[in-house]
């Protein structure tokens, strides 16, 4: 079973990701699935064949306004990063949390770096699925090195944004 980082911990992942070209797949009982948007829409809105409502896989440059209803329905949204240099997904994640008020699990996958972990989590991603085991191990090491001590920053995060000096005043 593949492992992911969830809420800062390495956990087993029991969701199965279906790729774009598996259009004719039939869901097995007792399995949880993540479907690309097109496949997801085929089963929408009843998902009768599914044991549990499937998660939704979106590319990072998706126009969220076009998938409003899917966002409200999906228990889990996975944003696919095509390249670690392409930061569109950081805005997509922030918008999902901030504007679309998405409360489910928000997962980043694809070409992401362990070094982007802090930024991703501050943009609302509570789960990270790395493309290879080395990256996962590196991320784990980095979490351990931090020992729960959250890195200090000026902006807060998407859940609790702040202006730079705000936290200094609240201390006084």
């Amino acid at each position, binding site marked *: 079973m593949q492992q992911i980082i969830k809420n800062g911990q390495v956990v087993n992942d029991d969701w199965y990701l279906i790729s774009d070209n598996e259009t004719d797949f039939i869901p097995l009982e007792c399995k949880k699935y993540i479907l690309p948007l097109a496949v997801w829409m085929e089963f929408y809105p009843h998902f009768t064949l599914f044991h549990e409502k499937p998660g939704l896989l979106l590319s990072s440059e998706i126009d969220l306004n076009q998938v409003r209803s899917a966002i409200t329905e999906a228990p889990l949204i996975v944003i696919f990063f095509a390249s670690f240099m392409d930061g569109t997904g950081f805005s997509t994640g922030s918008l999902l949390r901030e504007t679309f008020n998405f409360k489910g699990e928000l997962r980043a996958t694809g070409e992401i770096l362990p*070094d982007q972990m802090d930024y991703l989590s501050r943009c609302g991603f509570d789960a990270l699925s790395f493309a290879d085991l080395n990256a996962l191990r590196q991320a784990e090491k980095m979490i351990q090195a931090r020992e729960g001590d959250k890195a200090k*920053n000026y902006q807060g995060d998407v859940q609790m944004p702040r202006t730079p000096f705000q936290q200094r005043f609240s201390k006084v």
Partner: protein
Amino acid sequence: MYHYDDLDRDVVHNRVFQFKDQMTRFLNGELSEEAFLPLRLQNGLYVQKHAPMLRVAVPYGMLSSKQVRRLAGICHKYDRDYCHITTRQNVQFNWVEFKDVPEILADLASVEMHAIQTSGNCIRNTTSDPIAGVAVDELIDPRPYCEIIRQWSSLHPEFAFLPRKFKIAVIGAEEDRASIRLHDIGIKAVRSAAGEYGFEIWGGGGLGRTPMLASLIREFLPQKYLLGYLKSILRVYNQYGRRDNKYKARIKILVGALGTQEFSRQVEKEFERNCETDPQLTEEEFKYASSFFTAPSYQILPERHEQAGPHPEAYQNWLDRNVKRHKVSGYRIVTLSLKHEGQAPGDITTEQLHHIADLADRYSFGEVRTTQQQNIVLADVQANDLYSLWLDSEAQGLVTPTVSTLADTVCCPGGDFCGLANARSLPVNEAIQQRFSDLNKLYALGDLSLRISGCINACAHHHIANIGILGIDKKGEEFYQITLGGKTGYESAIGKVLGPSLPLDKVAPAVEKIIQLYVEQRSDETETFSSTYERLGKAAFKEQVYATDY
């Protein structure tokens, strides 16, 4: 100036620690070159022709004497006893060793400095008016806003992997000494008719391959919304800016493609969504930020109280060219020129840095500014200290009396150092300067800007110079394109290419011919180069340069 508190120190120390780990992993082979690239760039570390280059942030150009001494220490210990002032008011070390970089960053952190976001596709160092706080024409001191933006943009989680680099400049004076219209976002602090503080917001400017002046996208933004509005612009850019072609990735291309109106509409739509829910800047925060930029303890002095003469002519020249009026009676703004003959424009030695730190302590409340013009400013010098300051600095080569003349060239390191350059820029400058070494000849031309970039990245901002020169590569040979008619200040304009590019040895003669036509044709000695150029048109200058020999 701004002083770090615990949070600032934590942020910078964490980044130093993180970078040390990234460097170790890279050197151990645990981090690929490809993945290390954006991480090191976001920490100002380039791989150059001869050695890695480290670019250090100087937020809006402000430095304390203590910081200047630390830079001198780094120059001496890790570099070749000199560094370089950039057109974004930053400092570059050209000869550092890869392995020393974490240690240099720790050294910098100990004096409240860093290299965060001085490169890479992220929000870069916020620049400003180099004479902010002391300028006679200033309405509002822009530095508190710059500091708020500096903090907000540092390690912002959403905007660290943008389509391309992103530059912000803020001014608060009538004259634009920070070229805000050449920035991705240009901000002018203003007051509304009702007396409310706020900003004019300009967007979509930039140089490089497709130079564009920014358009006005918000006439008046109340100051409490500053960060929400910046976020809206960046968010639209991050979502819709192009990523398929690096030369079309800057926000100017997006603004150009959508049109200013549509771009503004999208920004406003995003802003409407967040403006009331996002935290706004409070009066208390502005007051707090402003408290770092209060006036130093000026003495009450008569406006004129210079040391009695007679003084040498060279001193008089320096007073005329390098010393400016100050908003406080009896004080002056002094530019220490880094355009000494034989020295690359903007280069500064360990010894000069120490000297400048001493001058700042002795004459200018221990503070120093770097300028986009690649000089150093001492902003608060008493008029009766000017002569001593001049005498003290002459031997250091810091009093070249040529500020704002043709000899005050802005020049990138070019092909001699930079890995990106297509051609060298320093020898071009040398060849031009040789033809204008006579000061009287130079002064007769009045203010005239010359900028030389070694490639289309346009680090020297050649497009906004009266005379701009761009190095290009033609089948492995260095050629140079001349642009005329650019300007910045009260008005901004992008220069136009004069004609076919020229080989190195033809550039200085061409510049001389251009100047010759200007001198012959100007209506009187007060007509600027730009005015003459606009009046005569490009064709006359083109004819002058290309008609005969080329």
